[in-house]
Every structure is written in structure tokens, then in C-alpha cells.
């Protein structure tokens, strides 16, 4: 992992800055590349040191399922929550603990880009919120987010195998 860190760290300062991330072409083209970058730079810091780098990437470790004996969703609940939390943060840029309609719209706009008109975006976001929003506050809180994904196999989707 440190090798990876070093290869990313172009100017060899021992920490990563936004430029290093942007140098990765693929990430730049990724619709939510910016948000992913934001996730690394937590709480207003300008640089990412190795430990926080690792900590973020640890979200994507595949969980070890065999040890868990309970129920149908055989993942360690904490790691699943962590993954969900990470995904939640990608939406929730202002870190207020809720995904507002505007934030959802931004993400949708980024992902769907030029394919849809504004109204369609609105209506899709509308529908999404009303599907998930149980306490009717017109925003999706983390619990509602978790609940809407309770049947989905998060672990399969958010794991990078080499991180084991």
C-alpha cells in the first residue's frame, strides 16, 4: 500500500495534495471524481497523509463473511455501516447528516450529465426522495439511506479485492 501511496505522491512530500489526485486521468473523468477526492480530504485539510489515505481505502476492504453466523445478511454490520457511511458522505457534501434534494440533484446531474433535461432530473430526484424519506423532512438521513439499501448487497459492490 505504501508503494501505491508513493507512486501517487508526485512531489514526494510524504502526503498527497489535490493535484496528485487530478493527475490521475481516469479519476478526473469520473463524474464523481471530485467528490471522491473530497472524501479523502476530510475536515478542510489540504493534504492527505498516509494514515488517512489508508483509513479511507480501508472502507473498501471486502469483509470477511465466514465468521458471521447470524441472519441472511452475513456481513459484519460495522463494516457495512462504514461502507454505507462513506457512500453517504459522497452525497452529503456539507456534512449536515442529510442528503437534501439539492445535493441529490447535484450527484444526479453529475452522473447523468447531458442525457436528461432538468425536469427529468427533478422528477427523478423527487421520486428518489419520496421513496426513501420516511420522516417526511424532504431529505434523506443516514438511517433512511441505510434502510433503502438494506436489501442490497453492499459488500459486493464496494469492495476492491486487492485491498485484502
Amino acid at each position, binding site marked *: 500500500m505504501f508503494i501505491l501511496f508513493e507512486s501517487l505522491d508526485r512531489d514526494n512530500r510524504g502526503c498527497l495534495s489535490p493535484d496528485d489526485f487530478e493527475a490521475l486521468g481516469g479519476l478526473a473523468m469520473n463524474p464523481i471524481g471530485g467528490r471522491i477526492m473530497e472524501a479523502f480530504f476530510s475536515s478542510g485539510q489540504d493534504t492527505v497523509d498516509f494514515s488517512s489515505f489508508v483509513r479511507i481505502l480501508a472502507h473498501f476492504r471486502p469483509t470477511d463473511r465466514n465468521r458471521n453466523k447470524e441472519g441472511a445478511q452475513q456481513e459484519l454490520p460495522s463494516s457495512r455501516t462504514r461502507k454505507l457511511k462513506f457512500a453517504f458522505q459522497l452525497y452529503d457534501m456539507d456534512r449536515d447528516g442529510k442528503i437534501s434534494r439539492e445535493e441529490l440533484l447535484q450527484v444526479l446531474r453529475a452522473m447523468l450529465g447531458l442525457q436528461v433535461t432538468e425536469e*427529468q432530473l427533478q422528477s427523478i430526484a423527487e421520486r428518489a426522495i419520496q421513496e426513501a424519506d420516511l420522516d417526511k423532512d424532504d431529505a434523506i438521513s443516514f438511517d433512511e439511506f441505510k434502510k433503502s439499501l438494506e436489501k442490497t448487497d453492499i459488500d459486493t459492490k464496494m469492495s*476492491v479485492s486487492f485491498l485484502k
Partner: protein
Amino acid sequence: MILILLHGSRGEIPSKPIAATILPFVKPNDGVQTYPEDQKNNLPVFTMNYPRIQIPFEITLWVLLASFAKIGFHVYHKITIWVPESCLLISIGLIVGAIMHSVHEEPPAVLTSNVFFLYMLPLIVLESGYFMPTRPFFENIGTVFWFAVVGTLWNSIGIGISLFAICQIPAFGVQDINLQENLLFSAIISAVDPVAVLNVFEDVSVNEQLYIVVFGECLFNDAVTVVLYNMFSFVAEMPVVEPVDVFIGVARFFIVGLGGMAFGILFGFVAAFTTRFTSKVREIEPLFVFMYSYLAYLVAELFAISSIMAIITCALTMKYYVEENVSQRSCTTIRHVIKMVASISETLIFFFLGVVTITTDHEWNWGYILFTLLFAFVWRGLGILVLTQIINPFRTIPFNMKDQFGLAYGGLRGAVSFALAFTLPDTIGRKQLFVTATIAVILFTVFLQGISIRPLIEFINVRRTNRNLETINVEIHCRLMEHTMAGIEDLCGQWSRFYWKDKFMKFNNRILRKILIRDGRAESSIVALYKKLELQNAMEILDTASGNISAAPSIVSLSPNVELLMTKKFLAADLRNIHDILSKNMYKIRERTVAYRGKHALPNDSQTREILIRRHATIRRSLRPRSFQSSNVPRTHKYFSLPAGKSLESRFDAARWHYTDDHETLSEVAYPSQRSRFGKPARSSSSKAMIPLHRLGTLEEVPSTDVLNEESSSTGQGVFRTNSSYSDSRVPHPRRLYSLFDDNNSELGHVVLIQLRDWPHQEPSQGP
């Protein structure tokens, strides 16, 4: 000519066990033979000509019989839980076979292996390929191919060699079977069968990974089976096997497998391309799907390459593009027809399996058969174990022991092996033994494993799946996660499946879609799902609105009319907008239909009402900046209705009429929603005091906003006023229609909303 006919019919095998049918067969003989001699020929009042219709008649009767059996099973719900359908069908087949045998009838010659391979199997495989969940499939594609190819190879060679070893033991009396023949036989029975497996696994709902791997394996092991079968049958006739033959075999395998896929992809693309131009001939659109896939199958058979792979890849490639090009109706038709014919085919296969079991001559050899069973089981288990160990490190989610058990136990043999056994060349001395052994293996696996797999899986607690409800949320979040993963993998310098998927999607959007789809605009899966869901809901509300029958057809006929009109005049973009517009306001309906799905449960009114309130509030909020005139629209909503029967239809006629006259009248359609008032929230859905809606009349220029009064139910007509400022938006150009929708999009929807929403209210007696 008649004599020729008779001669021909005498060659056909009398089929039906019903004794009565033998008689008609005899009659024409008599009648015709006397005919030439009888000079005084009276016009026969009543004739029967059975031989002429014999074959289609029999086929139809068999199909009907099998379908009745199927209906019969579902009468007893409990049975189908414990016993998979395939077992039941085989049992019925056994019974019928026993009856036939006792009457000394022959089974219908209809089930030859040619019929099976050319007519029955492609349909089943087409269905499997068409409805394969693509995303999980491509995620697991490596595992699938690994198991399919290497697993089958392992199985056949293992079983073959061990059987050969058994054959050496003189006690069993099968010493004359040499190695080649053993290998041939084992190639036949190591083929896991899609028909049987799917039948069983569908009910058990194991987790998705497991399901897709077993599914994929049994579909794709055909390539290996074909090669092995051909190779070994060729070799079985040769006294000596040389190493060069093995190499040829390997080369042949690649040709077979890859060739099959190549043909499939080729035909898939051609089919997609063809459907791009079928907008004028909607009725025959489904035909293209079937013809091209069948063509792929036949051409592959022509070259003796894996036809199953060809048809599956054809279906996979075709599906994505074709479903974009064809109309909604064609899409539904295609799906339904595929399912129907596949179901028939499957039913018939199992049925005949049972029948033929009784009526063929068997050669039973205890030792050989029992050991075959044993080895089949053992080698599969071993194979899965070893192979999983090898491939687990490459998988993101490794298979645990329980999964492996499920994989091993789910290896059911079925009809494919059966047909292959029948096509064995007669030069093989022990053909009957092989046939018997194959049937024994099939029956054993289907019955024993099929019946016991469900309780075992529950007992061992294999990871089960929760059938996902398709929701927009899940789709959005999954897409987000995929993008995230692509980004992270970029970060890690890893090229993995997300990367390839991303690349493929880009290629797809840039090039393929432009060529193959009529309006080749890139579309995200989120939007596609969204549209699909909204359309589904619209359709559902129309279905479940069991109220006004007279109005129902008009609604149903409206939507395709609208669609047709729309597609005639406007681009798909406009259509999308219209759907979009409608869908925005159909949200509330959707909530209803979620409750309807139970068919017995009453919808949760308070929830739907609340959502409706919120929905309209937001729409109004979004409307306000764009509205020409801010209206003090009360935040409550009313329920509108029409007097039972006529006006709804007339309303729709009006709407339809408006569409065709795409000018001034359209704006009328658009207006009223601005004025639509929403009544008291505290209203039960079965309330009767509704305001009759008014038929859209001429344009009226009344600037003020009217509040429709609930109590004015005595008046036959509420009035929708229009706004003078709207007249600006009446533009003759049809293109503007589109933008009209744009600006006043929610309004149109409101009208439709009201109309559609009224459905459940019309029958207060039946709880909506």
C-alpha cells in the same frame, strides 16, 4: 392420391392412448376402399379424415395435456413448494407412459432427438438467455466460464475413467465397454442441465452469486459437451486414440465456443440494427427477435458449433438494443411469447421424459448404473471443491463451504443428457445400457436432489437472496457506488471489472448506440429504470382500476394512441418528456399500486394522501416561478371524479382530440391543472361526494381563478378557466408542443392525474 395418403398414414404411429382414436383411423380405410367400387355414390353426410390432421392434432393434445397437468399442480399450492415442477411433470409422464404401455401403444414419434434439439431446446435456452440478469452475470463471468469449461471437463473425464475402472471388474459383466465409450457416456451425463436446474433453483432463492454461477454454468457447458460428445463419438469408432486427436479436440473446443459466441453477437447486432427501422411495422417486431435468434441457433448447428452459446449471446446482445427500439407493446409481446413457448417446451420435455422412460426397452445393470450414480455425485462434489479453491482468490466474494455445497448439489442432469443419449449411434454396443443409465441418473438427480434441495439449503442456511425491489433509490446508489469503485480502482491503479465496464459503456454510448438504436441518445440506467417504473405504474393503475369498464379501454387505448401519435410527430425525446411529465404526477398513483400488489390489501390511504399533498406542494412550488399567474391555490387537495361512465371517456376523447389538433386546443389541456383545486384532505378514498369534471370546452378567457366548490356537485359542470396569458403559448408549430410541455409540464400531468386518479374512487363499494 388418397391411397398414397393412406399409405403414408399407415406408417405413422398411432399415438393417443385413448382407444377411441384408433377407430377413426380405421374408418377412412373402409370408406375409401369401398368408394371406387360403389358407383352410386351418395354424398357422404359425415366423414372423418384422421390421418390428415393426425400429427398436428396429436401435438396439440399432448401440449394441452401437459398444460393441464401444470394447471393441476398449482391447484394444490403446497405441492409446488416441496416438489419442483419438473418432478411432477415427470411423474405424470410416467403415469401416462404406464397407461400407454399397458395398452401397447407406442409413444408418439414426435419426440425424436431432432425435434428436441431443433425445436424444443432453442426455445428454452432463448428464454434463459433473454432473461438472464446481465449485471451479475458479467460480474461473475470468469467464474461462470471456469466452472462451465473446466468443471465439465473434469467431470466427464473423471467419471469416464472411474467407470472404465469399474468395467474392468468382471463381476458386473460390462467388460466390453471400452474407454472411449465410457468417456462418451460420461460426457453425456456430466452435462448439467439448464432446464432442470432452473426449475429447482427458482423456488429456492439462493443468493445471487450462487444462482448466477449455476445458471451460467449449465448454459455454457454446452460448448464443452458438444465438443466432447463429438470427439468421443468419433473416437469411439476408432480403435486407437492418438495424441494429435487430443490437440485437435482442444482446438475444436475453442472454435466451438468462440465461434458460437461470435455468431451470437453477430446475429444480435444484426437484429438490433434491423429493429432500428421497424417503426412503421410494429406488428412484426417480435418476429425479428425470434427469427434472428433461431437463425443464430441453426447456423451454429450447421457448422456443428455450440448452438446454445450462439443463441444465448444473441439474446444477450440483442435484448439491450432491441428493447430500446421497439414499442412498449412489442416489448411486452416478446417477453410473454418467449416465456410461453419456453414453458410449453419445458413442460413437454419433462413429460416425454416420463413417457419414454416406460416405453423404451431398458437394459439394466445394477453395478454399472449404481456406480454411475455414485461417481456422478462424487466427481461433481470433488470438482466443485477443487475448482472453488482455485478460483476463490480471484473472486471478490469467495464462496464459502455452504455455497459450494449448493453448487455441487444443484448439479442436476436433465433433458439435454437424455436427448444426447438417444442420439448415440447404434454402433455402440451397449446403447441401451447407456440410455437406461442416463435415465436413471436424470430421474435420480431430479427427484432426489430436486426435492431435497430446498430443505437442505434452508437447513444449512446458505446465504439467501432478498429479492430486490427495483427502486430508484437502489439504482441511483448503485450507480454512485459503481462510479466510486471505478474511481477508487483508478486510484489503486487496478484495472478491474469496473474499469472495463466503464470503458465498455463509453464505447457503447459513443458508437454502438448511435448505430443500433433509432434515437441513439445515451441513456443512463437510472433514467431507463425510472421510465420503466413509471410506465409500469401507469399500466398497473389501468389494470387494477377494475371500476369503470367502459372507460378502461379508452384509457388503455389512449396510451398507445398517444404514443403512436407522439412517435409519429415527435422525437423520442418528446416522448420521454411526456412520459416524464405524466410520471411526475403519477407518483401518487404509484403509491397506490404498491399497495395493490397484494391484491387483497387495501391501500394505506393516509400515506398516499400525505404523499400526494407533499407532491403537489412541491410541484406547485416548482410551478410558481414559472407560472404565468400566481394563484392562491389552497394547499389542500380535492378529489375529482366524473359521473360514472361517460364523461371520463369523453374527457379522454377530448384529450386525444386535442393531441391530434395540436394547436389551440392543446393549450386547453394544459391549462386546467393550474386551476385544479385539491379538496379536503380528510377524505376517505371511497368518498362519493365528488365533483364531476367538466368536459374541456372551448377556450375561455377568464382571468380570475375559480375555486371549484365541492358543494357544487349539483352542477353538472365544473369549469376550467383559462388564462388569457396562456394564449401566448398557443403556437401553431408542432415543435412548440414540446416546449409547451416543457413550460407547463406539470399542468398537463395534473389533468391526467386527476383523470387517472379518479379511477379508484368510482367504485366506492370495492375498496380501492
